[in-house]
């Protein structure tokens, strides 16, 4: 029983962490709270439904296409809606992001209808036996995938040339440009990576909750966003820790029978962390030079 709850917490936390990574990366590089990020997950879930339930194609294809669609979507959104506003006031870009979020939600509602679609199971394997314990396979898979994705992301950011470019752009966009870094393609790459993670998150979410609806991205996105801020927005380990914290908090509150209060608890957790550490757990403190 206890093990199950811990695994549930890990599973939910992992999904939040994957989505939070996308928020954190985009924020880190262009200081934008990408409100549309949650809705990208919704797109991913619908693609899975489309591929498996409508076209009857194999789950592997559904996974690949979902992740690809999310990646493409993220890059496209940046190019169309955010790129023209690189030098505009930050609030304008924020409002644009909200506009994109509205557009995706209502577009999905128009195309697919308001009611939830059932996403078929990706695999028949539901439980695995581990040393006498019977564990839910989606949960274990979610945790493993998240660990792999986080390690891969860390390696990309720390070791590759593109990762170095990303860090340089997030440090100082102007200076990075002067050093010959192609800022626009670096930003596109960031959106691509963040959205691909959201795509993976979408598949794992659909695996766990087997449905897709137009507004599913909103609450999931908001929670993941809270997780990113909690951990310190802009920080990769912060997003993972924040995601796990939020996931565990929710599962714990539900387990003690107070599920109606779980949103309040998550937000309260955020407030307490921010009051104690104004830039989140792993956030850097930036002070203006006088």
């Amino acid at each position, binding site marked *: 029983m206890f093990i199950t709850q811990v695994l549930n917490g890990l599973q939910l936390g992992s999904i939040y962490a994957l989505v939070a990574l996308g928020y954190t990366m985009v924020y880190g590089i262009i200081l934008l709270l990408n409100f549309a990020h949650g809705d990208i997950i919704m797109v991913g879930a619908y693609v899975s439904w489309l591929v498996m339930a409508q076209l009857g194609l194999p789950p592997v294809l559904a996974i690949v296409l979902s992740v690809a669609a999310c990646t493409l979507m993220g890059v496209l959104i940046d190019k169309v809606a955010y790129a023209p506003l690189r030098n505009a006031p930050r609030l304008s870009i924020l*409002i644009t992001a909200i506009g994109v979020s509205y557009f995706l939600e209502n577009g999905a509602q128009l195309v697919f209808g308001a009611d939830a679609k059932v996403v078929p199971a990706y695999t028949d394997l539901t439980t695995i036996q581990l040393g006498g314990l019977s564990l839910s396979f989606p949960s274990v898979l979610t945790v493993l995938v998240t660990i792999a994705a986080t390690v891969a992301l860390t390696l990309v950011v720390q070791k590759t040339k593109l990762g170095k470019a990303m860090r340089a752009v997030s440090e100082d966009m102007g200076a990075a440009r002067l050093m010959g870094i192609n800022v626009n393609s670096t930003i596109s790459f960031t959106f691509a990576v963040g959205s691909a993670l959201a795509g993976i998150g979408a598949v794992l979410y659909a695996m766990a909750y087997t449905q897709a609806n137009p507004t599913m991205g909103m609450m999931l996105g908001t929670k993941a966003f809270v997780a990113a801020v909690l951990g310190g927005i802009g920080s990769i380990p912060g997003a993972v820790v924040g995601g796990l914290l939020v996931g565990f908090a929710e599962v714990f509150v539900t387990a003690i029978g107070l599920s109606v209060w779980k949103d309040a608890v998550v937000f309260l957790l955020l407030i307490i962390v*921010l009051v104690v550490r104004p830039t989140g757990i792993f956030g850097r403190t930036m002070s203006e030079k006088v």
Partner: protein
Amino acid sequence: MRHEKTEDKPVISASASKGDTGVYRRLPMPARYAINAVVVLVLLVLGELMIDGGAINRYQSTVLEQVGIYIILAVSLNIATGYLGQLPLGHAGFMSMGAYGCSIFIIRMSEVLGVGARDFVTGTPMALVLVIGGLVVGGLCAAVAGIVIGIPALRLKGDYLAIITLAFAEIIRVVMLNIDDVLGFELTGGAAGLTGIPGFSSFLLVFGCVAVVCFLIHTMMKSRHGRAILAIRDNEIAAEATGVNTTYYKTLAFVVSAFFAGVAGGLYAGCVGVLQPAVFGFMKSIEILVMVVLGGMGSMLGSALSATVLTILPEALRAFSEYRMIAYAVVLIIVMIFRPQGLLGSYDFSLSRVIERVMNRDFPWKRRDDKPAAEKDGEEVSAHAER
């Protein structure tokens, strides 16, 4: 800023170009207020007559009330965004505090005082007192929430402030939803909603409140308090070094903003008659923020105009309800891409200034050639100062 004294000495001013007489003639202060008051009164009476005469039907007048409520919400949020320069994402939380505070006060007090639902429609003196009392109570509830939220939130910067206000608003929503179970008696009605709220909002009440709120915000911003708030927006470090108690003025702006949102919430309750926590979610806060940003940050007229358009447009497009939200989203993105500062920028309309222009025969088409560009810019923004 310039007062009655201006007649007895020549005004040398960079942006006020001289009329034919050589001295820019100005309206004395009492006359300005009188003119504005008369215009407001005429509009209010005109609207009321049209409603009574049937030129505006019930549905339309309800939409008008909604317009007024959103105007109050937008201009009140504008204090925190446009004037203080922060980004709160929890305005709907203040609105719900006001809505519930006002409704519960009015419901409970009318039981105690024996005021019936009919009395609110006919408008007996007792009912009127109750309504005004309720709106003030609603405002105070929201203001208290504003203090509670403001003290931790205002220590944070930028996006962290945005997210913490969002968090507080969501907490308020969850509390409204579940508080009855904790208390053990019915207070907010939970998810089913708070019912039995007398329909006390009317065109006159709502737009009377709009006029009062706009006046009070205007007078606050054009005083030492407002200047301190604007100074914090322009440069917080310099404001502090100039003796501005930044903590106090940030909290003040936040609390005043919350208070008026609470009043709007009260009017909303009296307009729709049922309150459900789900209405005051995150999307409602965003909706109000969009009005402010679209209209132009720091422009009261901009906030009011875009509140009007964005309230009426969805109603007008009801027939195309499937597409209207998409159209809304597209308009939002396009406006932000092509006019990031909002439709009106920070321009604010002043009736007195227009009259002064006419008095001095100082028209835009006459001053085109002899004004350097920089001064024109200066003028647009110095709309903050009533000249």
